[in-house]
């Protein structure tokens, strides 16, 4: 994909189920029970199990890799965790949508402003990525 300042990148959607969270807990080492136990999640005031913030961030990184055409070109990736992604205990789960706009292109880098949502609401604050130009 060629990047020009102002270009709107193709939207990407990712389905997230409880099974994904369990796999991520194992792969990442983050075994906080709010990401797999409704009982614990509710005890700390959440409506139910939520995705790891880092899981949602990983989906944003995956979207950027897809736009870049290959992994390994990301030089910076950052976001705030502003709203939880609530993942129901069913086969459908929920959907995270990642959009991106090229905000700046230099000789070496491409800066992408991201928009990451679940159920219409932004779940990451000021998500952005910087890619090395291919």
């Amino acid at each position, binding site marked *: 994909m060629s990047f020009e300042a102002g270009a709107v990148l193709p939207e990407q959607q*990712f389905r997230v189920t409880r099974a*994904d969270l369990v*796999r*991520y807990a*194992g*792969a*990442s*080492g*983050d075994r906080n029970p709010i990401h797999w136990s409704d009982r614990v999640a509710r005890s*700390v005031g959440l409506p139910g199990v939520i995705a790891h*913030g*880092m*899981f949602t*961030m*990983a*989906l944003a*990184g*995956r979207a*950027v*890799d897809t736009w870049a055409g*290959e*992994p*390994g070109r*990301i*030089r*910076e*990736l*950052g*976001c*705030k*965790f502003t709203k939880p992604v609530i993942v129901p205990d069913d086969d459908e789960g929920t959907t995270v949508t990642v959009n991106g706009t090229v905000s700046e292109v230099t000789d070496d880098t491409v800066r992408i402003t991201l928009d990451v949502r679940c159920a219409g609401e932004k779940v990451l*604050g000021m998500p952005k990525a910087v890619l090395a130009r291919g």
Partner: protein
Amino acid sequence: MAVDPSLAGRTFPATPPYQVTGERIAEFAAATGSTYDGGPAPATFPIVVAFAAMTSLMEDPSVGIELHHVVHGEQRFSYTRPVVAGDELSATLSVDSLRQLGGADIIGTRSEIVDAAGQPVCTAYATLVHKEERP
């Protein structure tokens, strides 16, 4: 219980070396729906090492953090190079900033992740929000 105010500026010991294998990367990639072709690891893979450094901070009894009151507020990675299989990584965490906001401690951390030769791979910045027990 509030966090020890002298925490700002402290640097913690480096985490034990973490052996990055193709299997580890493949497992992480599969968990986030990516595929792994033997090349660079997914961008957020270094969190595995940074998380170990953050856990050491949070479990240090001198710091005064209660683990179940911690929320991950912000995360940023700055990469010198991608992580690949065969890397042996360790993270050294420093507390860059500490401030109070509405009954919460906002802890700004920086983990310098280096390879076996001590060469920089990635810097992981995490903001941890430590909330006081509600009455």
